C-alpha cells in the first residue's frame, strides 16, 4: 500500500498546489520516502532537508503520531500505508 506524505500549507506551492502526495513507490524508511518525494517535488525536499540531507532544525516529521526525532530520524522504518506528516515546528519570535 502506498505511503502518503502530508504537506503543510507553505510547502504545497512547491508541489503543484496539493497538500498530499501519494508516493508510487514503497519506501523502506523516512529518508527513502523524502528522496522519492524529492524526485517529484525537489522544492519540497530542499525545504525539509538541508544541503547535507539533514532535516532542518525547525521542521518536524512524523510517521503517524510519532516524531522521527525519537524513532531513528531519517532511518525510521515506514510501515505499509504509512502517513508521513511534515510540519513546521512551533518556533518563531
Amino acid at each position, binding site marked *: 500500500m502506498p505511503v502518503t506524505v502530508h504537506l503543510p500549507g507553505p510547502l504545497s506551492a512547491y508541489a503543484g498546489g496539493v497538500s498530499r502526495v501519494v508516493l508510487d513507490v514503497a519506501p523502506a524508511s523516512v529518508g527513502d520516502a523524502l528522496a522519492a518525494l524529492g524526485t517529484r517535488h525537489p522544492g519540497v525536499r530542499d*525545504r525539509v532537508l*538541508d544541503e547535507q540531507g539533514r532535516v532542518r532544525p525547525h521542521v518536524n516529521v512524523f510517521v503517524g503520531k510519532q516524531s522521527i526525532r525519537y524513532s531513528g530520524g531519517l532511518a525510521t522504518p515506514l510501515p505499509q500505508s504509512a502517513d508521513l506528516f511534515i510540519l513546521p515546528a512551533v518556533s518563531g519570535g
Partner: protein
Amino acid sequence: MELADRPLRRTPEKRKLRAVARAAAAFKVLDGDVLLMVGTLKGAFLLRARPARSRWTMTGPLFPGTAVYAVAYDDRSGRRRLWASTSSMHWGAVLRHSDDLGRTWTDPQTPNVKFPESSGAALRQIWQIQPGRADEPETLYCGVEPAALFESRDGGETWALVQGLWDHPHRPRWEPGNGGLCLHTILPDPADRDRLIIATSTGGVYRSEDGGRSWSARNRGIRTPFLPEAYPEFGQCVHKMVQHPSRPGRLFLQHHFGIYRSDDAGDSWQDVGKGRGVPSDFGFPMVAHPHDPDSVYVLPLQSDEFRCPPEAKLRVYRTRDAGASWKGFARGLPQKHAFETVLRDAMAADSARPAGVYFGTRSGKLFASRDEGASWACILDGLPPIVSVRAAVVTAARRSASAPGRRQLRVRRAARRGY
C-alpha cells in the same frame, strides 16, 4: 507620511492577500524616485519618495514572516532589479528578485544558493547581496553564514561557492560573533577585475588579487582587544567595511572596538576613531558618502557590553577628512531614553545631491536625512526589528541586449506571501 498600505490584522488570509496585492499595485515607483528597501526580521518594506524626499509612501510587508537580512538594487545594464534574501526559520533561505520595482518577485522552486555536498556545510543565512562591477553586469556576489562567498556569472540565475576562500586554511578557525559566523561585506574593486575584498565576523579582512582563486588576510594594524594577541594575522571582528568607488584603494571599517582606515587596499590599517570626536569607537554600521571619498558615517554604541548609544542619545557621526575628525549630528534624533541599536547593514545612503542617509533600528524605527546627515526625521515607526536598509535613485529603465532575467528564475506569483 502617507501609507500606501498598512499591515492588516484579524482578516481572513485570502482577503488579506488581496488587500496587500491591491496596495502593491498602488505602490508605483516613478523615474527619479528615491527608493528605500528595508529588511526586517518579519518581512521587507519598500518606501518611495520624489527627489525632494519630503514625503514617503510605503508598501509591505513583502515576504511576511521571513527575515530579510539583505536587500540590494541593481541598475547595471539598463535593468532596475531589486534583490532580497528571504529566510524562513523553518524552510531555509533563498534569493529573490523583482524586475518591476517590487510588484512581483521570483520564488525559486529550489534554493538558489546552496553549499555543495562536499563542503559539509549547510546555508544558514544570506547576509549580503552585492552586484559586481559596472562592466560585468551579469556578475553578482552574496555573502552567507556560515562565512562563505558565492558568485553568480549569469545575472543571479545560478550561484557557485567561491572555493578558494572556502578552502583557506584560516577559515576553520574563524569564530562566530553574536550574529553568527557571517561574511557581510563584499567589495569588488571597480578598477581592477581581479581584486576583491571581503570581511567576515570574525575572521577579518581578506583580499584576492586573482578573481577569487586565492586569498590573503589583510588585517595588519587592526587591534583585537578581545584576543590575547593584540594584532593577530586574523580573527578580527569587522562589523562593516566600506569603499568609495572613485578611490578604491581607500577603505574604512568599523571594528569591534575601533574605526580604521586603509589607503593601500587593506595592506595596512590606521586607527581613526577614538580621540578624534566620536564618543565611542564601538558600533556596527558604516556608510560611505556617495560622492566624497573622504566622508564616512558611523553610529557609535557605548560598548560591546551595552550596545546602546552613549548617554542614550542617538547620534550619527560623520568625518569629512578621512577620519582626522568626526562630528556628531543629533538634530531630529531622540536625545533622551534612546536605547536603540542599529545593526551593521541597517544604514545606507542614496546617490542624490545632497545625499540622503537612512538607518533603521532594532526597535523598528526608520530615520531619514535628506541633507547628508545634518538633520533627521523618523519617517516610520513600529516596524519589526530592522536588519537591512538600502537606498537608490531609480532611473528610467533601458532596454539592453545583456539585461538578464527574461529567461531566468520564473516569476511564479506575486511575492506577497512568504513561504
